[in-house]
């Protein structure tokens, strides 16, 4: 099915980082008119390969050919000039410029050399509308939820007249609907003969969109396959290097806690808690032993409600009680002091301290809670870090590396470790599995579930409804910045039902758990 010459071909690519070989003689081919998935565990070398292909990193060996001619890109600018357009992992945009500018930066429409601002905004709006994103393009990008930023990055990449489009985990923070729109666009591009390189940890997405798959493991090439001819199990086995265990076998978590919910007092209750312009007042109970999922569409206010509960933003109305005592969270510190941990959704902007080592990043919150004068002993640190690095399988298993050198998924695990380490009583997780490979994801979900069984209260936000369903005892649904329903989890709650509630805001059977949800006044 592939035409004779690949548009982009790499042979024997080697890349070393300070003596560690991240890519071991990898070969890779990309043909026009195909969507090619690049698969592998966290740290397998996917992003590194992409960066080498586009000249961000110089290869330490190997050759890259563009349409049969050897090339040596000096960077994204050079690659772009040759028709290779890339969206790198993590949102790499300019947060304090407007959305419109971010879409068209460097390609602004001009007349006599002067930028035509009206036209710029019109075109940006149009491009985003193609992805069904309806925003005021004049607002600062940084004020937008991560998913919108992600879509802006995608809009930016597909606008150019490119022969090769590379997308490194573009869907990690997208909801189902955004993914659908993206795939529609990719389909069209494929039809136009564009070669698309696509990285994702979602198997369904891979099987839905890709024609061929290249699998990497530990920096080495495992093989290149036609997607249709490779059963899921085999794909997973090749990625992990072993037969997959009960990755997908796991269904809904057996919520022991659900049965004895009556005798458990909630750890945190919110009554009419809200913030003007961010989220309408809502009621929510977070009970030890129970996982509460938050579901909703892009921009429905999931992150914003999580932030209020975590003290990251200050609520301007309502009352929060912790352990029965009314509290006002004046900041994250106050929340942490009350054993509330919050994993934020944007690891790059407000999670990692890139220069610090893995160890330092992991113990940061615990250390901050202890105060500067009481440093964790080296032994204790070692012990904790080793424990959690093993539990979460953070690779490479070298705690002294600067965290910036870790792969995206492993960075995410570091942040998760940071909060688990503090032994919280309420764990607020905003997209905790973003960018985490399927093997690790199952493991992490199991871990959270286990912690919940041991009496942890969990608030779980994820764009992936399956995941929410699998883990949650209760699913609260948000719509237009309002909490509209709380549905008991369990086998009865299917993705379809949930989608329906999200879409209509109506609870078809009208079973809003009493006392759980009262929609507050809209602000």
């Amino acid at each position, binding site marked *: 099915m592939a035409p004779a010459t690949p548009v982009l071909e790499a042979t024997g690519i080697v890349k070393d980082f300070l003596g560690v070989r991240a890519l071991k003689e990898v070969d890779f081919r990309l043909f026009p008119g195909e969507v090619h998935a690049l698969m592998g565990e966290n740290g397998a070398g996917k992003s590194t390969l992409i960066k080498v292909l586009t000249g961000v990193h110089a290869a330490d060996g190997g050759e890259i050919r563009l349409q049969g001619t050897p090339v040596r890109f000096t960077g*994204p600018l050079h690659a772009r000039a040759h028709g290779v357009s890339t969206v790198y992992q993590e949102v790499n945009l300019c947060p304090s410029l407007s959305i419109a500018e971010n879409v068209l930066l460097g390609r*602004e429409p001009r007349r006599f050399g002067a930028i035509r601002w009206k036209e710029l905004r019109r075109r940006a709006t149009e491009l985003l509308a193609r992805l069904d994103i309806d925003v005021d393009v004049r607002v600062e990008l940084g004020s937008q939820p991560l998913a919108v930023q992600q879509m802006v990055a995608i809009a930016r990449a597909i606008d150019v007249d490119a022969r090769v489009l590379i997308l490194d985990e573009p869907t990690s923070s997208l909801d189902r609907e955004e993914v659908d729109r993206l795939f529609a666009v990719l389909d069209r591009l494929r039809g136009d003969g564009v070669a698309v390189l696509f990285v994702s940890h979602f198997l369904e997405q891979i099987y839905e969109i890709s024609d061929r798959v290249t699998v990497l493991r530990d920096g080495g090439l495992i093989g290149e396959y036609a997607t249709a001819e490779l059963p899921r199990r085999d794909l997973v086995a090749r990625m992990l290097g072993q037969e997959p265990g009960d990755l997908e076998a796991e269904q809904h978590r057996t919520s022991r806690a659900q049965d004895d919910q009556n005798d458990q007092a909630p750890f945190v209750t919110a009554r009419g808690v809200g913030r003007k*312009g961010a989220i309408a007042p809502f009621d929510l109970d977070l009970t030890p032993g129970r996982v509460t999922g938050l579901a909703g569409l892009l921009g429905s206010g999931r992150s914003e409600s999580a932030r209020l509960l975590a003290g990251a933003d200050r609520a301007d109305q309502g009352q929060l009680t912790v352990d029965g005592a009314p509290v006002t969270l004046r900041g994250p510190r106050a929340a942490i002091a009350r054993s509330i941990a919050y994993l934020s959704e944007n690891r790059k902007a407000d999670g990692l301290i890139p220069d610090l080592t893995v160890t330092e990043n992991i113990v940061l919150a615990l250390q901050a809670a202890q105060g500067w004068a009481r440093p964790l002993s080296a032994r204790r640190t070692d012990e904790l870090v080793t424990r959690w690095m093993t539990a979460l399988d953070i690779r490479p298993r070298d705690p002294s590396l600067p965290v910036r050198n870790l792969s995206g998924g492993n960075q995410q695990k570091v942040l998760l470790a940071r909060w688990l380490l503090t032994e919280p009583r309420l764990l607020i997780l905003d997209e905790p599995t973003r960018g985490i490979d399927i093997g690790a994801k199952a493991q992490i979900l199991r871990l959270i579930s286990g912690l919940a069984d041991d009496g942890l209260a969990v608030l779980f936000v994820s764009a992936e409804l399956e995941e929410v369903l699998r883990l949650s005892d209760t699913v609260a649904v948000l719509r237009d910045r309002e909490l509209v329903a709380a549905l008991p989890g369990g086998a009865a709650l299917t993705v379809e039902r949930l989608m329906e509630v999200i879409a209509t805001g109506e609870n078809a059977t009208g079973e809003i758990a009493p006392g759980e949800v009262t929609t507050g006044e809209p602000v």
Partner: protein
Amino acid sequence: MSAPLTSLRLAARHRRGYIPVASTAVLFLALLAAGNSRYYGFLEGQVLLNLLINNAGLLVLAVGMTFVILTGGIDLSVGAVAALSTMMVAWMVERAGVPPLLAIVLALAVGAGLGRLMGHMVHDFGVQPFIATLAGMFLARGLCFLISTESISITDPLFATAAQTRIPLPSGTFISISVVIALVIVAVAFGVLHYTRFGRGVYAVGDNPQSAELMALPVRRTILAAYTISGLCSALGGVLFTFYTQSGYSLNLLGTELDTIAAVVIGGTVLTGGAGYVLGTVLGVCVLGVIQTIITFEGTLSSWWTKIVTGALLLAFVLLQRVLTARRTSAGS
């Protein structure tokens, strides 16, 4: 119900960038009003115009600095490069008999060249801007001394004309040629920053250099150009200074880099780059000028009180600026 609300919020958000400049403008007017209520003749037209006449050179330096700071850098060499330019022009015209216009062009070229060299150090070799331009500052000052340790008067009539020509404005007031040049530079800078790809690139690079690189923007060209522009503006500022004083002197404009940076930052530009307006810089220069004017009008301050009062006025200004912007931004988000 929530639609109008959302659009209101969006409107507030999208204007947030202008708040620092707007508040600076308001405070500037307040400062003028305060001066006027205290001193006789403070708001006379010519006093205001003198603000521009006296600060034309600083304004041009600050415009160049704005470019560099917007890219997230800093340029400590501006004062020294300007001094070098006064020295070069004076020496060439007076001692070497170079035609004045040619001398000016050469001085501008040297300024731009020095700027570009610093740009290379910053971008290509990853030297921190502070250090690269500190070296540039030493070098430029040092070259001044090599030309001459004494001040050189310029007797060429062109400079006398440039210095003494008064461009009349209504009601007996006037401005100088330098003011016109400076305002043209401001206008050009405004156009470049807001209406060219390069200008937007400057903001992008300052906002997030790694992202800009990954967004396939010409980061290298942008940074080199920003430092070159700063060097060029410094040299031009020096030339305007020779129009102002008709002389060249190695110790001219000592410490001006800090005034320049202060003007840019007071004008609402963020030192870490990516946000700011060149019109804010104009206001920043005017604010510093008014503070100076107030002190002159006060007229009885001893040397140290001059410093203390300057600091106090600056403090009052940034505090008020802070109060205003904090109100607005918190209302906006």
